[in-house]
């Protein structure tokens, strides 16, 4: 077997290195979880679609939820919910009794009116959660019901207080001696529009009377910048249960809303509207070609939509005026990547894994040299230079394999958790930063291993690690602080400027530049701090390449100059 491969193989097949590789892989998964957890535990306004129906007569209860990431794509997460109902008559009585005099007492006693009928925690599948149950408790007609729902996705968590005064309120529909509680909600705006019966006329504001309401619908219109599709997300319930045709009000280039009469005949629907699809009750999503919006998506305040069901016995419809929610593309990826390159993401990797690298050099050259074991190898038909390069290359291979395992584990975990994955080019830049940093540090340690051996190597390499990895930022901070204090400049900006300038002199900071280029490649900017312009001045691709090559080649060459004549026994 080729000695390089054999050295690599025997290097890899050591228990310590195998544990290292396992550690790298587990670290990749762990760091992905850590990075995602730190986002997911951040309280954010949730992005989710809810649909819930309670049939008071049969006690059938259904809850559907669709969890969405910042790009409005389904994302998996956990939903914990409570269904609470309370007697509105009792609440009114209590309010009239205490509401104006003793607010604290009123709130205290009102909270005791809430009766939790169902609760649970459900994990989504492809972003969807479906709960179907038959409630054990009866829901009286004078009851009001609320849903208290908390979601946790990789992109944040929501918190809802369980109280009669909070939660998502169900709307009540009284029809054919049945009482139905309906909750429909989509992300911003979360208004519910009533669905009503129609005869031969439709109105932009459908007339609603208690007996006329046949259901509710909530809708969100989302436009991802740069996309050729807009997305209409719907949560819809109707008593009729049939499918609904969806129409978008025609748009001209000048007037965002075409002149639609206040009322019109259903036969004239296509005169004022374009049919964009058909939806079933429940949660649904329609993709609408942006050409139908006539290039107005960025400036239109809202668009008219008509939902029309041509049932056999009854025809139902509603008219929605839905504002467009313009979302910057890659928002989800941006959130993840910013976290990924932060101190709890790859920062942890580059903080700790150089220790493994300096150990590798110890195993490959410093220890056998201090033992005197290299001489016996050198007595084989091999030159000194070959011995030197074989061990260097074997170590580089171990570093590359270990980093690859870590990186694949990390990115696969992130993709599985969030659905986000970088482009091939971006992925290679980020991977390149990691592996080149570690190889540069390996090369530097290899130089130390050529200059010293045994315990002296350990001391020198650990001190180097502490300097390059731990003390580097602190030293820069102190330098900047003492130079610029009281001068009236932004210390933070100067720290960033000097840090990125001096990073060319630190093998472990090559990855900082690669992270900068990664963010430019993937999300178009790098703005962890308000220093984007400064980084453009300081980060120079030629200097990055020169620094990287120099950190890898120069220690190798200097080490060789020492090694070529060195005595290999202690």
């Amino acid at each position, binding site marked *: *077997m*080729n*000695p390089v491969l*054999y*050295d690599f193989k*025997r290097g890899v097949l*050591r228990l310590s290195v195998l544990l290292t590789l396992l550690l790298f892989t587990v670290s990749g998964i762990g760091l992905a979880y850590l990075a995602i957890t730190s986002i997911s535990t951040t309280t954010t306004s949730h992005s989710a679609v809810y649909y819930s129906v309670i049939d008071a007569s049969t006690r059938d209860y259904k809850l559907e939820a669709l969890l969405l990431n910042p790009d409005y794509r389904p994302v998996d997460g956990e939903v914990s919910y409570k269904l609470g109902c309370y007697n509105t008559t009792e609440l009114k009585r209590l309010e009239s009794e205490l509401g104006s005099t003793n607010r604290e007492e009123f709130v205290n006693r009102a909270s005791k009116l809430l009766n939790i009928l169902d609760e649970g925690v459900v994990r989504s599948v492809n972003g969807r959660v479906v709960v179907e149950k038959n409630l054990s408790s009866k829901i009286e007609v004078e009851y009001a019901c609320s849903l208290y729902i908390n979601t946790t996705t990789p992109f944040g968590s929501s918190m809802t207080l369980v109280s009669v005064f909070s939660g998502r309120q169900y709307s009540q529909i009284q029809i054919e001696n049945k009482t139905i509680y309906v909750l429909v909600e989509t992300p911003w705006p979360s208004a519910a529009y009533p669905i009503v019966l129609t005869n031969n006329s439709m109105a932009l504001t459908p007339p609603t009377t208690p007996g006329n309401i046949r259901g509710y619908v909530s809708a969100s219109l989302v436009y991802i910048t740069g996309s050729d599709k807009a997305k209409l997300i719907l949560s819809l319930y109707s008593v009729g249960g049939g499918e609904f045709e969806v129409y978008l009000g025609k748009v001209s280039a000048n007037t965002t809303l075409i002149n639609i009469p206040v009322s019109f005949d259903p036969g004239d629907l296509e005169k004022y509207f374009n049919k964009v699809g058909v939806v079933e009750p429940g949660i649904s999503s329609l993709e609408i070609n942006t050409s139908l919006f006539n290039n107005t998506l960025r400036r239109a305040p809202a668009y008219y939509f008509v939902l029309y069901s041509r049932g056999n016995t009854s025809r139902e419809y509603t008219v929605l005026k839905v504002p467009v929610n313009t979302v910057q593309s890659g928002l989800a990826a941006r959130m993840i990547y910013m976290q990924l390159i932060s101190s709890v993401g790859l920062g942890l990797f580059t903080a700790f894994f150089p220790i493994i690298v300096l150990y590798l050099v110890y195993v490959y050259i410093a*220890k*056998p040299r201090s*033992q*005197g*074991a290299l*001489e*016996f*190898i*050198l*007595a*084989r*038909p*091999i*030159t*000194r230079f070959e011995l030197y390069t074989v061990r260097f290359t074997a170590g580089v291979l171990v570093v590359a394999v270990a980093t690859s395992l870590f990186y694949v584990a990390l990115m696969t975990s992130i993709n599985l958790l969030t659905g986000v994955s970088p482009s091939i080019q971006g992925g290679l830049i980020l991977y390149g930063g990691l592996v080149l940093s570690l190889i540069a540090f390996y090369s530097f340690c290899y130089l130390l291993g050529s200059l010293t051996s045994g315990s002296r190597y350990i001391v020198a390499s650990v001190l180097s690690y502490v300097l390059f990895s731990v003390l580097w930022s602190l030293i820069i901070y102190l330098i900047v602080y003492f130079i610029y204090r009281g001068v009236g400049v932004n210390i933070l900006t100067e720290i960033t400027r000097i840090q990125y300038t001096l990073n060319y002199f630190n093998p472990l900071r090559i990855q900082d530049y690669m992270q900068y280029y990664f963010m430019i490649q993937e999300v178009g900017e790098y703005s962890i701090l308000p220093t984007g312009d400064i980084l453009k001045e300081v980060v120079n691709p030629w200097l990055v390449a020169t620094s990287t090559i120099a950190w890898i080649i120069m220690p190798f060459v200097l080490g060789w100059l020492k090694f*070529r*004549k060195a*005595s*290999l*026994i202690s």
Partner: protein
Amino acid sequence: MTIEIRDVSKSFGKVQALKNVSFSVPSGRVVGYVGLNGAGKTTTIRIATGVLPPDQGDVVIDGYSVTRDKKKASWRVGWVPELPIFESEFKAIDYFTYLAGYYGYKGSEARRLGEELLTKFGLGDAINRKLATFSQGMKKRFALAVSMINDPPNFIFDEVLNGLDPQGIAFFRELAVEFRKRGKAVLFSSHILSEVEGIADIVVFIHKGRIIGSHSIDEIKHEAKPAVELVLTKVDNDLLKLLGKYGEVSVVSGNRVLVRNPSVDSSVLISELVSKGIGVLEAKREEKTLEDFFFNLVKRAESGEL
């Protein structure tokens, strides 16, 4: 098939370990390389095996320079060090396989050869043992097995008998003799001259980094025989003829005569001389050993005579 040490010098800091060392080991010969501890034997051998670069001079193995054509030179020489040091956390067979890779052997082929050679050199039961658990003797046998991967035409044993049990000593002595029979050039170093007796054809002596002598083993044995030194009243041909009956006679100086390897006791010899009317002014018996020969050389080197 020769090992030629050509004018090799080497210093470690301010200490000059070797000064213009030159000698050669011809094929089918065992050259003993003898010197006190620290004389420069191991340094010479490390240079000869290519693991230590000389400051000056060169070592040529079968025409290939260890400094300029190291791979070819190393291919042609085997080496068993005094204290073989390996990356001892490995199993014997794994490390053998690794080292065999430098000779172009593939994994399975190298393992098969490893099993064969380790068994041949008495390590059959230790193939799967870690090298860290090996005794000195076992390590030397392992080094031998590795050096025999390509059965090189030249071999160097560096103080190989040190620390071995009688069985191990016999093994390596017999091996050196066998190598000579097979026409290999063998360099066998030791700090004890008698260790190379019966093995070496020629002995090269080194002291303080300098070669102080190179003698055939017969010459050394001859020099090391017991002798009677006599100071007589007269020395003439008749007298020398008479003494020749009792041993090898040589005139040291004037009336001083040396009778080597006398066939009779010195008192008998003196009686015989006196009975022939030759006055014996002084008689001294010398009991010289191989080591005496060696130390005599050292003494002469120290005094600047050599």
